[in-house]
């Protein structure tokens, strides 16, 4: 099964020059990952970990001062791998929305406030859907109905819909062309728990029906447990652990992962929660070696010197931690 998305050694930095001082913020630092067909890949990490920059880079939605300084992003929608950053603009426009769609964070303002929802569909989806106008309208309404949205929603303005409705409309919009790859950036963060559950169920259902791949970013580990097939943990712009969601939750190998999972509340668990000491590192001047070592309870001297590479300690389960690598693995 070939990967639909493959990132190799991806590096993207913010470069700012102010009053003669040059600064480089290493938002994405040497990330290598792959997402297969019919798979939901989750990306977890706290705020300012660089995960937003990562998916923007993977979607080629970056602007100066953020630029790609190394590595590659390759997509394969069934007709061979294509380098995202080497693509001509018209080719890029053709794959957008048809093959690669994006669900943005914050449904509050992603839709044009002065035009009706119908126009958003016309602008985003119509160019990619063949057939007559009547056929197009039928398809859109059928898709909406399938997601339990009334077709009257098309005549509404964004401010006339509630937050949950808007998010569902956005999801409908992002999936109406049946894209092979969907990037979802914190789509449920702004919603209350009940609506969140609905939206997640909707996403899962669509993904299964279309057999598309999804890259799902959220800091909420509970959502990852509920939804994703594979999981990647990002810390300070780097991928520190990656594996099947079940494996990662059952046997977390990286100390940071353990901490993230342990912070999830469990019914009946009355033990007090401990925060990690310290704060996330400054990406303009990260610590040497492993970026987590100043806060890590298991740090050993080599952590300070060398940046640990990602090693597969079990089939499909990689981790970047010298301590974990040295420990005997339970089968």
């Amino acid at each position, binding site marked *: 099964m070939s990967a639909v998305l493959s990132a190799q050694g991806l590096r993207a930095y913010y470069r700012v020059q102010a009053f003669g001082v040059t600064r480089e913020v290493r938002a994405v630092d040497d990330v290598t990952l792959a997402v297969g067909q019919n798979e939901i890949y989750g990306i977890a990490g706290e705020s300012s970990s660089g995960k937003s920059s990562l998916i923007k880079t993977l*979607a080629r*939605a970056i602007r100066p001062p953020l630029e790609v300084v190394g590595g590659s992003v390759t997509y394969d929608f069934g007709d061979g791998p294509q380098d995202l950053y080497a693509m001509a603009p018209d080719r*890029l*426009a*053709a*794959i*957008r*929305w048809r093959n690669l*769609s*994006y669900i*943005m964070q*914050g449904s*509050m*303002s*992603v*839709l*044009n*406030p*002065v*035009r009706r929802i119908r*126009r958003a569909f016309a*602008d*985003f989806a119509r*160019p990619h859907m063949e057939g007559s106008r009547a056929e197009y309208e039928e398809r859109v309404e059928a898709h909406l109905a399938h997601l*339990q*949205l*009334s*077709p*009257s*929603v098309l*005549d*509404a*303005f964004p*401010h*006339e*819909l*509630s937050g*949950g*409705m808007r998010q569902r409309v956005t999801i409908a919009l992002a999936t109406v062309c049946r894209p092979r790859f969907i990037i979802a950036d914190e789509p449920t963060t702004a919603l209350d728990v*009940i*609506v969140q*559950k*609905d939206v997640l*169920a909707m996403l899962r*259902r669509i993904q299964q029906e279309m057999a598309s791949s999804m890259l799902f970013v959220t800091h909420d580990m509970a959502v990852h447990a509920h939804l994703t097939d594979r999981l990647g943990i990002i810390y300070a712009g780097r991928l520190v652990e990656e594996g099947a969601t079940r494996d990662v939750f059952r046997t977390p190998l990286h100390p940071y992962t353990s901490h993230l999972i342990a912070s999830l509340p469990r019914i009946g668990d009355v033990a007090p929660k401990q925060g990690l000491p310290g704060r996330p590192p400054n990406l303009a001047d990260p610590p040497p070696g492993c970026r987590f070592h100043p806060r890590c309870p298991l740090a050993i001297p080599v952590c300070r010197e060398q940046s640990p590479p990602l090693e597969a300690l079990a089939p499909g389960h990689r981790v970047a931690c010298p301590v974990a690598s040295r420990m005997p693995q339970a089968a």
Partner: protein
Amino acid sequence: MSASLPTEQAPALAAEPEAGARRGGGSYGAYLGKRLLQFVAVVFIGINITYAITHATPIDPVEQTISAATSFGSTSPEAIATMREALRALYGTGGNPVGQYFAFWRRVAVGDFGPSLSAFPTPVSVLIGRALPWTAGLLLVSTSLSWALGNLLGGLAGYYRRSVSLKAAGILAMAVHPIPYYITAFVLLILFGYVWPVLPISDAYDPGMVPAFTPAFLLSLAQHAALPVLSLVLAGLGGWFMGMRSLVSNIVSEDYTLYAELAGVKPRKILWSYVMRNAVAPQVTGLAMSLGAIFNGAIITEQVFGYPGVGSLLVAAVHSGDYSLVIGVTTVSIVAVSAAVLLVDVLYPLIDPRVRAG
């Protein structure tokens, strides 16, 4: 999992009673009410200020006016008596203060300002009625032009940040913008009146012509309006340009613009349907707020070019001591500008649908 979906979804859908339906949409009436209230407030306060000013000095302006009129000679005693009565009734110093106040309002309400002194016995309202269309026409043409052109260029300048020609246009607009209307008009007068006399510098049309819908007359109309319009457009362009440019630079990084880019929507469509379309709304509000200032500029410009509008009328009235005319023009100006603002306010929800929901 999927078998339990319908029931799991049901509570959430029930919690959103307007699932699929729309909410809001009925408060356009409330918005309209607010705008109407503003209109009434402006007219009320403005006319009260006018009234207050007429009573600001112990020197009786009515007598001043009468003596100025009679000093011109050959006015019959009956005419003087009528004058005095009319002026007194309108804003005079006879009678009790409260009665005066209400008499004033009564007169204003029907637009009766009495006879004009400088053009006795023509009523002031007739004079204003003749002059107002010229001012209105001038304002309409020049404001539409400067607003539309300024916003267009400013929007493009904000979107295509690297364009040299747009940057140059920006600097030009910014250079003319701070200069007061009078100076701009004056400089144009000198340029086109003396240095390079290709356009007429006074009147609304060739004095030798009879107004008719002939091409010759219309051409003369256009020629005579050219300089005043040019002056007003130049003076106003810069403000709209800068405002739109800064609006557009902000909107370009709004979520909905970025999202449209992520969806591969064509740049031209994004420019017009997403960026410009959203930037125009605050500029309409800005238009409503500037109408008072634009009106000021128009009547000043008229004076420079001898354009027979309300501005020339006002200045001539002051110079000839025509009290009733001055008050008439002031009052009508206040009402006219407020009405224009109300009109723009009423049309605003067409541009910005968010306001319809109140």
